[in-house]
């Protein structure tokens, strides 16, 4: 090259080399940086990139529907949108909370509390902040998608229960899993789980498998595409033995009276109707129950959230005479036994009165009765006599053999056992020996004995069917695991059913419950809830709280029945009131049978 430059006019070569080297070293540093990110840690950053843009949205599976025995829909689902907070969507969601709360008409403290509830959940777990949002809420969320990328709506399917608490105590309700279930990893927060009744008992069957949608999102949370879509598997439907028409009749007949009704098919044990009063509206749970409503229900002395048909444990009163009668007849003590009722029975120095003794108008005695008449007229003196002859161990034996004092095994959670008092029980409980005088009380259903309505319904069903005691159940096809047989002689069944037929005919204790043209019979019961001595110390309101409970158990037809009904009317004073309720249920049963097939 034609270079004619002076040496001093050239740039210092050494320092130029130095600059070259410096640049080279700088570039090597950059290459090192690239190599680190793109080669060494490529997998890690690729995963982070995926985490950035892929969001997993749960698609909640609808719960199984619940149908009655004729396929009539009882419990349905409806689509509903829930507003969720996504904590992994960038943006400062904490700072946005007050504005979000305002936009969705929520109290900021309530939103904070809900978020606090999820503090241990992983960040990618969406937090539901408002259930069942309105169109206005949806519009707010859509309009602020850029401003609040952390706010999202997800469709859920929600429970729709019958109105006015129809069958509420047996269907139960659903809610969010409790903290223990979440902590154990069994259930995710926001999942729906059965809390009581059939919803709880058949939760596994009713619960489907949630689906999952994986979507691509951009930095502002806008969905750019769907990667995969795993559709939810709906839960299995539940078909009940319940007959909606009979249920409706039972609900109407019991009205607002505190108590319970159980109707079942004695041939299978399938429950036709089950009512508990007072009741509650399970739809309120689905919509998010207020703390106020919850505490009102929990603190109500009549316990609306309980299913009294399986959970009320009360003295059976005269209904228990059926047990004493079966024991006497099976032991061949009662068949030809007559007792002359003078209105009072003396055991030692203690006088036990018959109910006729204290009624306002005479006669105050039954006179001479055989066992069939004693059942029809519910003569206490007859059963005092029979009971003290049999002794407590024989009465207990038959009571236990016919399913009292133990769970029936009905497919509902938290069934109560009731109590059959035995000398061993008394010894263990009170460290006292059994007094024979107590046997006299037990024989007519007073004393320590307690039963549940469903136990009594099965009891009468079993006796009238000749000793077949199936397991009561609500779901069609429920395994027959709790049933048993106690073979009764034809004479026993004949005598008792004849006596029960008399109960709803002139001269019986529930003649007013007579059904024209229907073979119907049963047994009344009036159970004291406090001793006579105790009652005398009370007055006015307090006294009314201890009005006797009224019972009625009935069957139709009386031999080989197709329906057995147990009615508990708390503070109903007299068994005949309960009997009229049972009669309406039986009528509805025949009407329903005429209207359609009730084959299970």
């Amino acid at each position: 090259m034609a270079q004619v430059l002076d040496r001093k006019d050239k740039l210092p070569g050494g320092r130029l080399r130095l600059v070259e080297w410096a640049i080279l070293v700088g570039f090597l540093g950059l290459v090192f940086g690239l190599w680190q990110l793109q080669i060494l840690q490529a997998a890690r950053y690729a995963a982070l990139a995926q985490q950035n843009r892929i969001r997993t949205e749960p698609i909640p599976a609808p719960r199984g529907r619940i149908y009655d025995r004729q396929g009539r829909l009882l419990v349905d689902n409806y689509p509903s949108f829930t507003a969720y907070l996504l904590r992994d969507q960038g943006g400062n969601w904490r700072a946005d909370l007050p504005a979000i709360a305002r936009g969705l008409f929520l109290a900021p403290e309530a939103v904070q509390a809900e978020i606090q509830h999820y503090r241990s959940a992983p960040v990618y777990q969406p937090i539901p902040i408002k259930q069942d949002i309105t169109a206005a809420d949806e519009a707010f969320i859509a309009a602020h998608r850029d401003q609040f990328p952390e706010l999202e709506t997800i469709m859920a399917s929600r429970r729709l229960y019958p109105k006015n608490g129809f069958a509420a105590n047996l269907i139960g309700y659903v809610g969010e899993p409790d903290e223990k279930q979440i902590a154990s990893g069994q259930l995710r927060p926001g999942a729906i789980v059965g809390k009581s009744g059939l919803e709880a008992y058949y939760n596994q069957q009713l619960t489907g498998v949630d689906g999952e949608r994986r979507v691509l999102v951009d930095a502002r949370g806008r969905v750019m595409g769907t990667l995969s879509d795993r559709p939810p598997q709906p839960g299995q439907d539940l078909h009940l033995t319940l007959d909606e028409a009979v249920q409706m009749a039972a609900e109407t007949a019991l009205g607002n009276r505190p108590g319970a009704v159980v109707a079942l098919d004695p041939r299978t044990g399938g429950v036709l109707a089950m009512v508990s009063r007072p009741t509650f509206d399970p739809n309120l749970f689905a919509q998010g129950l207020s703390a106020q409503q919850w505490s009102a229900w929990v603190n109500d002395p009549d316990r609306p959230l309980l299913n009294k048909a399986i959970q009320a444990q009360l003295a059976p009163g005269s209904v228990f005479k059926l047990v004493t009668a079966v024991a006497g007849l099976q032991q061949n003590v009662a068949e030809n036994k007559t007792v002359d009722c003078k209105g009072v029975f003396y055991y030692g120095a203690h006088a036990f009165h018959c109910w006729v003794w204290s009624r306002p108008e005479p006669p105050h005695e039954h006179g001479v009765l055989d066992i069939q008449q004693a059942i029809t007229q519910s003569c206490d003196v007859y059963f005092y006599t029979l009971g003290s002859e049999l002794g407590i161990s024989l009465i207990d034996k038959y009571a236990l053999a016919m399913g009292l004092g133990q769970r029936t095994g009905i497919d509902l959670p938290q069934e109560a056992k009731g109590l059959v008092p035995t000398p061993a029980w008394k010894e263990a409980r009170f460290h006292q020996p059994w007094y024979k005088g107590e046997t006299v009380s037990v024989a007519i259903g007073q004393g320590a004995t307690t039963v549940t309505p469903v136990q009594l319904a099965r009891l009468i069903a079993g006796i009238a069917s000749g000793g077949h005691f199936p397991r009561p159940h609500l779901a069609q096809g429920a395994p027959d695991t709790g049933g048993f047989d106690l073979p009764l002689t034809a004479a026993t069944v004949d005598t008792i059913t004849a006596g029960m037929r008399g109960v709803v005919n002139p001269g019986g204790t529930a003649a007013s419950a007579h059904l024209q043209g229907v073979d119907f019979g049963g047994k009344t019961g009036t159970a004291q809830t406090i001793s006579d001595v105790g009652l005398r110390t009370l007055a006015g309101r307090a006294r009314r709280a201890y009005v006797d409970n009224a019972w009625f158990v009935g069957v139709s037809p009386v031999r080989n029945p197709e329906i057995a009904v147990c009615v508990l009317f708390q503070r109903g004073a007299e068994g005949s009131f309960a009997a009229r309720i049972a009669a309406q249920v039986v009528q509805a049963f025949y009407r329903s049978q005429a209207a359609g097939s009730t084959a299970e």
Partner: protein
Amino acid sequence: MRLRDLDWWLLGVVLLITVMGVAEIHSATLGTRFAAVWVKQVYFAVAGLVLLVVASQIDYKLILEASPWLYGVSVAGLAAVLVLGKAVFHSRRWIPVAGSHLQVSEFVKLVIIVVVARYCGEARLSLTWSDVGRVVALVGLPAGLVLLEPDLGTALTYVPIAAMGLVLGGMRWRQLGLLALGGLLMMPLAWHEMHPYQRERLVGFMEPQTDPLGRGYQVLQSKIAVGAGGMWGQGMAQGSQTRGEFLPVPHTDFIFAAFAEEYGFAGGLLLLGLYLLLLMRLIHNAQLAPDRSAGMVVMGVVAVLAFHVLINVGMVVGLMPVTGIPLPLMSSGGSSLLFTFAALGLVMNIRRARFVN
């Protein structure tokens, strides 16, 4: 000057990088509100090419001689932007020219290169402390004005020009060491004077994981984009970080991250190689320069471009803090592109002069 006098090697590399830049801007802004920016970039590139040819026709000696005047106008311009900018244009960086906003400080860079080259290029064996002081003051005044805008990134790009001039101008190592020490001691003071957003950027750079959605967000998203590119990249317009707008400003300051996500380590290496080729070619030209000041001008351009590439790519891969320094020839933005082409035009002129005595 005939066309064959141009440095076709240099021009080839420059145009290749520019085309890659336009393609990347297009790919990174698809479907966003910046989708039309690449067209603008093409216009600026064409304008830049014209500017390059024009600049290559102007005798660099005239420019060197006029440099005191140019310097005076520049300082006055920066002061005007500072005073008027806020009131008139609601920004102290830009002045509107022909419907576009041009950044005055970018062109002042060119003037500083020339001024420093002239001062340091005068044949001397070594610099006295007062020489050093004059150079520092010469660069410090406009840098201070830019810093007040406030534009730390651009102000910082003036520093390597001064450093290059001092190193090549014959500054002794001891002087350089003391100056560097003084600079280090100034750092706490600088921290104190920094704007909160600048401090946050520094902290975010130091520990990007501490607050991934706040200060460190940009750095982290940039690193994710680069890392997700892997060896061969995800393909043009296929980068999820860029497409999903997780990567901030993927067509300007973080264009290298978008590029690295789409073309991987291989692409990144190629691009860095092109920049290295460009710089080495410039140094080669500096050696051929007819006199020391001319060589110093070329090395000033080298200093600015190398600084930009090192700081910008260093920021993208997480080795440098976020400073808002664009990647020359790649980043979308007219001022930066026009400056680069104008500077290269100057280099072309100096190269042509090697045959002239």
